[in-house]
């Protein structure tokens, strides 16, 4: 009896283990984007991917392009080999017949026609004329080969089946950053800008226009970005951080951008006085490096998500170049509103 009880217990225990493992495995198979487990809790690929979406997108693009190019090369080789075989020739013999023997070198008339289109090359220097002749002769041969391969392609049934990667929605960090507008707005604009840049000032005006056209629909977040060795921009960014700390950020922001990038280094400190920024608090913070670290965080995050020049706007995570036409930006915002996309999570 004891043995049977023991055996039954073991069977039940085993079954429980199997079921437990199996259900986990089943759960994982139903959720294929589990990339890791931590203390029994899953970490999803979608969580990780959002942080590195831009880099992943570019790498996927690299792979796609490499595969496509290599496939094209192999397709060309196969087409030539097949045609050569069909005609009982080697590939080099085929190319000799179809390219070398059929390519007509340029005559003097064609040379004159070329020089008529490129008068800057018209010269009595025989070396120059010879160079042009060499170029035109080589080009004829190359073009003949390209045309021949294209003709083989036309007769073949070729399809490249891989799809290119889709442009990602990037996770832009905005936790603890200065913002204005509607906290629960369906569209979040994250603006990487330079207080001392004319281009950044122009993009600020466009965002203001957007806010007036879509009241309560936009949350506008600022983050710093500027060019290397720009001491003026660095000082302005540090002052901005101090203004944020002191609760007067947007006063500073509006004042700085009202100058539209036209300011000297010595005037920036005076502008901070205009909004009654506590100078001692700024000096202490600057000495401690508190503001520099914050600015560096902005710059580092910007670089990671693909910002190379100020200003760049992320519209619910979609990258939008700084030199945008207003209408394109408006269209993107409208599309997002239509999707009723929630703001990016902090």
């Amino acid at each position, binding site marked *: 009896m004891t043995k049977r009880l023991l055996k039954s217990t073991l069977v039940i225990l085993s079954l429980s283990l199997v079921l437990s493992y199996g259900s986990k495995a089943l759960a994982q198979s139903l959720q294929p984007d589990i990339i890791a487990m931590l203390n029994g809790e899953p970490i999803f690929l979608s969580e990780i991917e959002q942080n590195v979406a831009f880099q992943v*997108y*570019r*790498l996927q*693009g*690299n792979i796609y*392009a*490499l595969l496509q*190019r290599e496939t094209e090369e192999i397709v060309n080789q196969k087409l030539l080999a097949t045609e050569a075989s069909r005609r009982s020739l080697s590939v080099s013999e085929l190319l000799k017949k179809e390219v070398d023997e059929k390519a007509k070198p340029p005559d003097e008339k064609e040379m004159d026609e070329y020089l008529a289109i*490129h008068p*800057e*090359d018209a010269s009595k220097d025989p*070396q*120059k004329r*010879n*160079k*042009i002749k*060499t*170029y035109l002769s*080589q*080009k*004829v041969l*190359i*073009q003949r080969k*390209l045309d021949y391969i294209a003709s083989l392609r036309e007769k073949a049934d070729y399809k490249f089946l891989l799809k*290119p*990667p889709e*442009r990602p929605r990037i996770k832009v960090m905005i936790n603890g950053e200065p913002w204005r507008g509607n906290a629960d707005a369906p569209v979040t604009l994250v603006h990487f800008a330079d207080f001392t840049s004319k281009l950044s000032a122009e993009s600020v005006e466009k965002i203001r226009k957007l806010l007036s056209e879509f009241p309560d629909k936009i949350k506008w977040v600022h983050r710093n970005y500027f*060019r*290397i*060795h720009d001491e003026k921009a660095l000082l302005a960014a540090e002052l901005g951080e101090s203004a944020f700390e002191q609760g007067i950020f947007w006063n500073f922001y509006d004042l700085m951008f009202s100058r539209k990038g036209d300011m000297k280094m010595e005037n920036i400190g005076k502008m901070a006085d205009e909004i009654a920024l506590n100078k001692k608090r700024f000096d202490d913070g600057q000495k401690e490096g508190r503001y*520099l670290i914050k600015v*560096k965080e902005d*710059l*580092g995050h910007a*670089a*990671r998500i*693909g910002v*190379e*020049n100020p200003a760049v706007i992320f519209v619910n995570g979609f990258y939008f*170049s700084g030199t945008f036409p207003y209408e394109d930006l408006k269209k993107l915002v409208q599309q997002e509103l239509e999707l009723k996309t929630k703001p990016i999570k902090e």
Partner: protein
Amino acid sequence: MTILVPAFVILCMLFVAAFATAQTIKTPQLVPKRLSSTGDSITEAIDAELPLANHWASWVNGYHGFWEWLFGLTDVNSHNQRISRNFGAWGRKNYMEAKSGADMPDFYEQTLGSVNHQAQYVTVFMGHNDVCGNDFADIPTDAEFEANFRAGMENLSKWLPAGATIYVIGIVDIYQLWEIARDKKALGIVDCEVLWATTLLDLFPCGTMLNPLNSESDRLYTQSRNITFNKILSEVTEEYNLSDSNHHYFYTDAVFYSVLSESQVSDIDCFHPSAIGQRDLSRITWDAGPFNDRQK
């Protein structure tokens, strides 16, 4: 007679051996503390990570200091940095004779700089602007290209300190750069054709490859010149290596044959190497170069 023949043969063999040995004896190679780079906008790292010259990001002269740290810029681990790590920082000099826009006729003048700086290690990475003209008629003939290259090499061989190293790197495959930059547009990262359109105004340095009006045969013609110029660089370098016992010459075409990816090309101008591209350039050329046994 029976004794004379083998003796004669032995004598001949000894003579040949002595001759061969004399050819391969070179002045001991100097430690490359004084570095001098000759070249063009690639060596100046134009548009590598930020607009215009990014000297910190040069594959050969690059460095990593405060501003690079603040901006989280790429550490390219250049030849300059590798030399300091492997040979010590004492007595180091890091000269850049390279100038954006330079082509092979400028090589001689740049070597004057290398000689003036008594360089112990000279890198030569030039020819891109010979392949990249505004117009096809601007591309030099083989003879012109070779003559200009020889002029600079002759200067180096005559006046560099004995034991110096000259390292010649073959021209990048310009055609690949065009292909990859086309990929950038397809990925929506940047519209390269907007930048390239400036070639029509003769403001962009590589019309013979990047002009939007070029046909595929035009681009392949330019690539064929690229290949021929590399052959000249290789042959002339080898010739100097065999004939000049005072200096050490190296050539590699590893860069030409590297498969490039989109991230290695700058987003700023869709043509020059990005900082990642510069970092990879440094690695590829170092690993193929005269000090590749030093891997710190």
